[in-house]
């Protein structure tokens, strides 16, 4: 867990630590921004939150003892993003998806339908996914995270990563093959 907010953090690091931060953490700035962008869904918010997360990471860096720096940074980005989402609640998009109610996808035509999906449709469909599903897809498909890394970043047991991904992908397929515009929550 992250410690409570420190005051003017960055100046607390020694030069050696700062250099280590540059070598280990900064190379993952793209990943940090990418995750924030997809969790928050707007570029301006993503920049603010990614910046805040990086500065927070810098403050907490003395507490980072080995491990995967990308997963460590993305955990901080994710926490910052969820905090932001909670304080700017936009309503509606974090509800749990009800498999029972929505049933299974029809078997055959999805491959062709998805083949027609262009970038904008994919982006749109991803943005309409509940946040928890969107994040596992982004981590897996865009960041190339392993299940172990996804479990670490999203704080879920390793055993549930596969089923979350399965549900997320089915939901995405359904949005892509469904009627051109699925009703969006008010």
């Amino acid at each position, binding site marked *: 867990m992250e410690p409570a907010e420190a005051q003017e953090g*960055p100046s607390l690091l020694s030069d050696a630590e*700062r*250099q280590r*931060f*540059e*070598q*280990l953490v*900064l*190379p*993952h*700035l*793209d*990943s*940090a*921004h*990418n995750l924030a*962008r*997809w969790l928050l869904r707007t*570029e301006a918010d*993503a*920049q603010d939150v*990614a*910046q805040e997360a*990086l*500065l927070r990471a*810098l403050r907490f860096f003395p507490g980072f003892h080995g491990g*995967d720096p*990308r997963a460590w940074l993305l955990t901080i980005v994710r926490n910052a993003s969820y905090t932001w989402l909670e304080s700017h609640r936009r309503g509606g998009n974090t509800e749990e998806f009800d498999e029972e109610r929505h049933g299974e996808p029809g*078997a*055959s035509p*999805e*491959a062709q339908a*998805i*083949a027609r*999906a*262009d*970038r904008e449709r*994919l*982006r749109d469909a*991803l943005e309409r996914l509940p946040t928890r599903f969107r994040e596992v*897809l982004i981590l*897996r*498909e*865009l*960041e*190339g*995270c*392993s*299940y172990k890394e996804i479990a670490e970043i999203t704080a879920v047991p390793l055993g549930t990563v*596969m*089923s979350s*991904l*399965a549900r997320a*992908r089915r939901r*995405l*397929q359904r949005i*892509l093959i469904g009627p051109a515009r699925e009703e969006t929550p008010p």
Partner: protein
Amino acid sequence: MSCEKAESLLHGYLDGELDAVGATEFERHVQGCPDCTRELDAQRSLRSHLREADLYAPAPPSLRRMIHERVAPLPSGGAASAPRPGRWRWLAAAAVVTLLATVPWLALRETRPGAAEDPLAAAALDAHLRSLQVGHLTDVVSTDAHTVKPWFDGKLSYSPPVVDLAAEGFPLIGGRLDVVDGRTVVALVYGRRKHVLSVFVWPSDGTPEAAPRAGARLGYGWIEWTHAGMRYWVVSDVAPAEREEFSRLLRR
């Protein structure tokens, strides 16, 4: 294996997260089951669309600059004493002029410090870029690991592991000898659509086992690790997810 079981394993299979036994059982089931084959195809198609749709949102230069100023202020102290807002306009205009005049220099300077600080990363990147520029990708051209591996025999004191990853979408193109940081190394070349991935391998000479570490520079990303007495550097301009996946397949 029942369809129900297969369905629950499908995503683990797709993501390369099943163990060898699980994967083999899954494949055996799919071969005789049109429904599961269709579902697997649909999922593969969804994945390739996601990965090819250019959805990745890298950090914009403004964010990168801001972070670098906070983390690594220039020694001159320019960043520490932030100029008053009114002066920004002039500074920005001056910056544009400077930028236009020095684009290649800037491209080299505006790198992520991870690589800039790391001479090996720089050397591996250079070797990769050199091979692309001089059109010298391979000395031995073959998609067959059993042809590429023996080619190195007698040329080096060690034998590099060469694996076939065509089924996973990374066909082997060939191999060559290269020089990284003053030592002769094995360079294996794999393809991914129109992109090239270089894998540099050499004996670790006592460097302890190390988990993968990644970085990027000039639009090229690298991942390096040490395993079983060998150091590995993967360099390519494929998407980060593909680089990760490729490296994971190599470590399998």
